[in-house]
């Protein structure tokens, strides 16, 4: 009971941090899961659950008007369930459908906000600026509170026992299958990022990074340094060859000013 309350409160705070306020990335699965782990007293398991989820949802991001799967909510519930004894692989596998179902709530919230917007128009007409600020600041967060109470609390409170009951009759290959899909699914996130970057003629750089990491014992930081160099060199030659001489110098000269 107390655990369910704690987890719900965390879900509220992180749900608000996720989009409406801040965006310091506390809502990223790795961080969100760790916070739940800290609160429930098992950071190691929490991080074990969070890493694969972080990889799976790496490419899930809100660009423009799109609403990504709610990886935060999925992770929070998964970590809470893992703490209560559900195996890590299963907790990870459970988080994925939760994240996708939560999207419909998030879409609904943003629909309601459209009415808030019209109310704000009316308040501007009435010169009631204080009330504009209050409406702007409260409606979305309150809806996140409602959502968390409806979804997170019951999932954590009833979930563990219900899930354990199901697990006892689930054959081993199912758990193994979930485990395997957890290893493969990061490819989906990376495919999404790849498509969104969407500059075909830059694709060779992906292969350079891939080959470096496949053949050499090089870390991500090492490749990043090479990547920065590659970006500057690319831009140097790209800007020389570009049309019109009006854009003078390269990016580094722009930064220096």
């Amino acid at each position, binding site marked *: 009971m107390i655990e369910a309350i704690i987890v719900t409160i965390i879900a509220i705070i992180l749900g608000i941090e996720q*989009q*409406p306020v801040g*965006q310091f*990335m506390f809502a*990223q699965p790795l*961080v969100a899961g*760790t916070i739940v782990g800290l609160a429930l007293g098992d950071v*190691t398991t929490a*991080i*074990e659950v969070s890493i694969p989820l972080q*990889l799976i949802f790496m490419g899930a991001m809100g*660009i*423009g*008007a799109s609403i990504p799967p709610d990886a935060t909510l999925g992770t929070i519930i998964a970590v809470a369930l893992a703490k209560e004894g559900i195996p890590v692989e299963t907790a990870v596998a459970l988080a*994925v459908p939760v994240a996708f179902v939560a999207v419909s709530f998030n879409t609904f919230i*943003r629909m309601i*906000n459209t009415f*808030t*917007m019209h109310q704000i128009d009316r308040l*501007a007409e009435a010169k009631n600026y204080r009330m*504009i600020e209050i409406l*702007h*600041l409260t409606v979305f*967060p309150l809806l996140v509170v409602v959502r968390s109470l409806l979804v997170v609390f019951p999932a954590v409170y009833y979930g563990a026992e219900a899930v354990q009951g199901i697990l006892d009759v689930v054959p081993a*290959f199912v758990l*193994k*299958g*979930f485990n*395997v899909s957890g*290893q*493969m699914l990061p490819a*989906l996130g*990376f*495919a999404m*990022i*790849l498509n*969104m970057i969407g*500059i075909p003629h*830059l694709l060779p*750089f*992906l292969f350079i*990074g*891939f080959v*470096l*990491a*496949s053949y050499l014992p090089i870390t*991500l*930081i090492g*490749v*990043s340094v*090479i*990547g920065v160099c590659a*970006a*500057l060199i*690319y*831009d140097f030659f790209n800007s020389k060859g570009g*049309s*019109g001489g009006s*854009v003078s110098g390269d*990016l580094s000269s722009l930064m220096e000013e």
Partner: protein
Amino acid sequence: MTTLKQARVVDQKDLTRVFIRQFFLQTSWNYERMQAAGYLYIILPVLKKIYKDNPERLQRAVKRNLEFFNTQPYLAAPIIGVALALEEQLGVMEDEKEIVAQENAISAVKVSMMGPFAGVGDSMFWFTIRPIAMGIGISLAEGGNILGPIAFLVIFNIFHLGTRYYGTTMSYDLGTKFVERLAKEGIVQRVSEAAAVLGLMVLGVMIAQMVKVPFNFSIGTGDAAKKFTDITNSIMPNIVPLGLTFLLSQWLRKGVTPIRILLIVIAFSLVGAFFGFLG
């Protein structure tokens, strides 16, 4: 024309306030006008200061700043900074024709900046800085080390907060000069492309290190039997994860929804685990 210098009413305190209010840019995000109310919320204290003796002009400015706005949240900062410089200038204008022209200019600046800045911001933060910071965070977090998430937050937020703070103050100081330079055709695209070069290289590393397709069967019989993964690895290590990523990218481009791909991958894994060729 009134010069910018004479018009200045915004001080450092106001800019700090505008910086802090930017954390509430998306608090009433909605489908119709997206970050519109958030934008107004951020600059409202400055508008109140500019028009402290003129409630009618204040209302006019408030309504005008409720128009559609949406960009990458961190890169709203330079747009706001520039718009503030222009708003301030507008505040001391008295000729109606001049006012209307300036109002149109402000809208134009907002609209023309928010599109390209959204693109640059996405490629900088979502495709480059966040994956790199997260890659570092994950590698530190292996085995349950709390240093991982902390390192991620610190690295990411140095860029995040730096962009929001200096984006606001510097672009305000530089006024429109900064905009003209950045919005000048080519530069925005160049920044995006340079960021994409780095982003793609990092993506290549992450595909190699983080995607796994654990095939578990052999080809051939007896002593001649060779594990399938050994064969693929002898062609090139991690070639299967790379192929998988490109296959899924292809499916996404054909319009297969992510949730459907997800279900397919899970179904494939279950089948593979059942027959024993995966896992």
